[in-house]
């Protein structure tokens, strides 16, 4: 798999006109690598992912997928271009079965039902435990199982760029570890991953490159090695203690 890079340059974005959350962020998620974005609450991490996923239109600046400017494309076009989003918190359709949830991940492939069926089958082969649960309502599953459904659903269209927002929130430590292992495996397949996380230690452990945002701007950045020292001091700095 040859995944494109995802680059944001001079990015301004926000929810209220005149009050941008992101104020000139420059960031590149390199092809086939895991790029982690850290920062205190309110730094603009989730806003960054929402903008990259097409849920927010940049006020200024660009979002480039390879050579294509995708900043002003609606969210549903991003999927077709190979971008997948794993959002923070629960995002399953609780009354639909596991199979129906996963199948909807291939909504962008709906005009080619054979291809869609094959893609769902491939995902169920990848996650055999979900095949056993396929008739269960997604809302009846544990938090970890629902996370697996969400990951499986994201992978149906075989995205090359993954946007991941705090994947371990609400999960037990064991399940959270499995999620990070899965992210490593997805990177090993050549996918570009942009990971926003509050779990600094876990995120840096799988990162190739790290950006730290502060108040909607770039603060510091560097390879993982630059951040493997005293993480506690960095977090204390964010908290101002």
């Amino acid at each position: 798999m040859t995944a494109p890079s995802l680059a944001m340059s001079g990015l301004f974005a926000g929810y209220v006109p005149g009050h941008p959350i992101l104020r000139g962020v420059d960031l590149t998620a390199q092809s086939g690598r895991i790029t982690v974005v850290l920062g205190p609450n309110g730094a603009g991490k989730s806003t960054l992912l929402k903008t990259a996923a097409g849920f927010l239109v940049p006020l200024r600046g660009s979002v480039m997928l390879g050579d294509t400017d995708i900043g002003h494309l609606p969210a549903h076009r991003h999927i077709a271009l190979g971008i997948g989003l794993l959002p923070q918190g629960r995002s399953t359709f609780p009354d639909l079965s596991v199979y129906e949830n996963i199948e909807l991940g291939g909504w962008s492939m709906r005009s080619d039902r054979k291809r869609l069926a094959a893609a769902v089958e491939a995902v169920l082969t990848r996650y055999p435990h979900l095949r056993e649960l396929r008739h269960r309502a997604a809302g009846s599953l544990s938090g970890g199982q629902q996370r697996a459904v969400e990951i499986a659903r994201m992978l149906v269209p075989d995205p090359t760029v993954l946007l991941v927002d705090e994947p371990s929130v609400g999960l037990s430590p064991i399940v959270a570890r499995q999620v990070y292992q899965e992210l490593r495996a997805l990177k090993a397949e050549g996918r570009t991953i942009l990971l926003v996380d509050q779990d600094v230690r876990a995120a840096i452990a799988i990162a190739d490159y790290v950006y730290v945002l502060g108040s909607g701007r770039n603060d510091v950045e560097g390879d993982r090695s630059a951040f493997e020292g005293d993480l506690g001091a960095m977090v204390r700095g964010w908290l101002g203690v």
Partner: protein
Amino acid sequence: MITHVLSIVADGVLLGLIYAITGLGLSLVLGVMGIVNVAHSAFVMLGSFLAFELFRRFGVDPVLAFVLALPVFFVLGTVVYRVVITRVQSAAQTQGLVAMFGLMVLIENLGTIVWTTDTRVVTAAYTNTSLEVGGVVLPYVRLIAGGLALLLIGAFWAFLRFTLTGRAIRAMAQNPEAARIVGVDIQRLSAVMFGLGIACAGAAGVALAMVFPFSPNTQVVWLAWAFLVVILGGLGNVANTLFAGVAVGLIQAVCTAVMPFDYVYLVLYVLLAVILTVRREGLSSAVRRTI
């Protein structure tokens, strides 16, 4: 005696099926999109007049008018969605409600200008004929209208359950944000959903025109029936809407048999009040339900 009871039950069930499709579009649009479409019954009325005009001008049988109403009103619904709903959906819900109320008044008044307030009927070849089974008399027109309603309900149920678009509509009702994440174009699918709701309204109007006399003002009574079905059956659930419609039909049939007709509506409205009192949260909680 048994024959009489069976006749009442059959009459109630057939009527109930028509009531069910009268409420179905309202229920789905409210359940999936959170839009209280008080103009729903105005589209039901337009469906009745579509059947009336097609029959009067071209001799088109109401059964064919029922089928024709579906695409015609689907397109009409998507246009209304694009022109009206998209402009008010980001505003407060009361603003949307007022907009739909305005649309209802507009359609009713246009109907009055075009067709006056005279009461109309659609008299097909089979209108005054009946099927008798073991002494139970079943008017063909009710059998046909009820059968068409049942077919439409079945089609909606199957569509929502077995097609990818139907599942996407259910997904949108349950978690619109997640639906966007998987690539669903919410605006487009909402237009489809609203179109389907209005298609259902138009078809219900044809079915009602086969059974009842109507005028542009009758839509207010139909709106009450539709809301009664929705409140009794909950939102967005096709099967529950079917049962609620049949329940309303049965109650009406029984009341008609045992009391003067004027009291029938009284009973139905008291029932509406009782349900709203018992289910204190009313429609607002129903909006949160899923399909």
